[in-house]
């Protein structure tokens, strides 16, 4: 009997599957289910009123807009950074490589306070930016800066290993076959990197949507101008409005989940198109 089973490297498939499901439920599904359950204490009409209040809608626009933009910026510059780190060697490269992870490790409040100190009108950068009309701290632009900061490692760290595996011979072959630099990048390198790049983008985006600590210090938190959705949730909580808070949270969850699903779908599609699905 035992011999008829398919051979697996690690034993205990049932055990690990059970463990995975249990672990997922305990850490992710049950807390999230609790959010939705609490929301159901509201009637449908009340729910709609809470989640479509103009002030709340303004925060969706800022939170999701800034997060998408920040993830896009990170996708471009994170790719460049990863490229530089993989393909070139320069003095202090190890240090730069380690620095990339810093936004992961730094308490977000510290990041927020540091960025605010930098960009406030009397800060190191702010004192030069403000006179030429660029206000960063306490504006939506400040929110974007904070989100770019915390999202950077996601793109670099997902793209880097793929780049390391990428043989330079592929590029040489392309060049030998007469490809221009841009063509090599566009038709050889980018398709290989795209799935990883999109994963990085999705991670950076997801992190940015939920970010509270760093943003709150630099945002200014003015109603209709620079309030993020997580702050709305805190605001509801401070009024002991648990149901309102979970209502907004569930809208955020649905939004994020849908967007992540789309991104994952796109990723699978590009992987298939480039024949790299495994």
């Amino acid at each position: 009997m035992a011999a008829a089973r398919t051979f697996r490297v690690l034993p205990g498939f049932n055990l690990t599957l059970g463990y995975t499901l249990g672990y997922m439920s305990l850490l992710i599904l049950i807390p999230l289910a609790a959010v939705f359950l609490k929301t159901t204490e509201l009637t449908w009409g009340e729910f709609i009123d809470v989640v479509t209040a103009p002030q709340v809608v303004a925060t969706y626009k800022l939170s999701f807009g800034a997060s998408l933009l920040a993830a896009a910026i990170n996708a471009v510059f994170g790719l460049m950074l990863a490229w530089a780190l993989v393909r070139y060697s320069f003095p202090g490269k190890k240090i730069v490589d380690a620095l990339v992870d810093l936004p992961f490790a730094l308490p977000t409040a510290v990041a927020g306070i540091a960025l605010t100190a930098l960009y406030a009108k009397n800060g190191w950068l702010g004192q030069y930016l403000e006179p030429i009309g660029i206000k960063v701290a306490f504006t939506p632009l400040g929110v974007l800066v904070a989100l770019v900061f915390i999202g950077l490692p996601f793109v670099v760290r997902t793209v880097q290993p793929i780049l390391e595996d990428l043989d330079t011979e592929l590029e040489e072959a392309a060049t030998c076959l007469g490809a221009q630099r841009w063509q090599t990048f566009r038709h050889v390198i980018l398709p290989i990197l795209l799935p990883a790049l999109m994963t990085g983008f999705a991670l950076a985006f997801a992190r940015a949507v939920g970010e509270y600590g760093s943003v709150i210090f630099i945002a200014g938190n003015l109603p209709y101008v620079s309030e993020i959705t997580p702050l709305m949730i805190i605001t509801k909580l401070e009024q002991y409005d648990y149901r309102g808070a979970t209502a907004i949270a569930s809208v955020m969850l649905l939004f994020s989940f849908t967007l992540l699903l789309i991104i994952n779908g796109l990723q699978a599609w590009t992987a298939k198109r480039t024949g790299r699905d495994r």
Partner: protein
Amino acid sequence: MKLKSLVAGLLANALVAGSAAAASVSILNVSYDPTRELYQEYNSAFARYWKGKTGDDVSIKQSHGGSGKQARAVIDGLEADVVTLALAYDIDAIAQESRNKLLVPDWQKRLPHNSSPYTSTIVFLVKKGNPKGIKDWDDLIKPGVEVITPNPKTSGGARWNYLAAWGYALKKYGSEAKALEYVKTLLQHVPVLDPGARGSTNTFVQRGIGDVLLAWENEAFLSINELGPDKFEIVVPSVSILAEPPVTVVNGVTEKRGTTKVATAYLEYLYSAEGQKIAAKNYYRPIKPELADAKDVARFPKVNLFDIGFLGGWQAAQKKHFSDGGTFDQVYGRK
């Protein structure tokens, strides 16, 4: 087998903990941010007093954070023997929300002076020399003056600030429409709304943003203490609000833990000469100034104070000003 030893270990733990509780008692005081120094000093004073009176050792654990956040923690099950929060509204929430009957609804009548052994008020902190010449509430809405205050929706301290401004305008102009106009203008002078009072203090003191910080008097004194009197000074407005941070025993917890007696004594002792002295020393206005040191009391200038009753009590004020659609929302909503 492993399970057995685990259970044995747990039992041993419980036994140790149990015997420790018999020899000494510990209570948890859940408080808000700027009382840290006050209660550090008070706790050791009370432990001495309690040891002398009963022979028992009492150790008091402290928890500090934003007032609303602390109240939610208690509602959600943090076993606080006593709560000492920034405003009655937060303790009301504990009495109302919890299913476990933590508090009686009229908790605030159990101790003298609305259960507030010390009070404070809202003052202005300005840069040394008062470069913008800020003297009273009207100066805050002069062109070019930036005011720093936290968001009243998320900060208990900010609610006192907002109500102080509202009360001033209501007293001066005599109508609510005018008061609304005043706070609307005032909020246009606020460049950043931090979610908590400590954040606002940072913005003003560390970042150097704004000309005036609206702050609790005790926080203003603490800031000056920490940063040196050569950087900031306190301006006391003509009229302000009497901020009463109340204290109460959380019966639901103490009855279960058998700490009602010590927890009650802990709060009552705040009204004693020693308690009042420590409060005054830590920049809270003692409710019985005659018991505190005269030189500490002399630091508090006379202010024309109105209390929350002038605005209809906390429940009414919260509903009118800070609930969704309240005056604060109206001020920002009218575009």
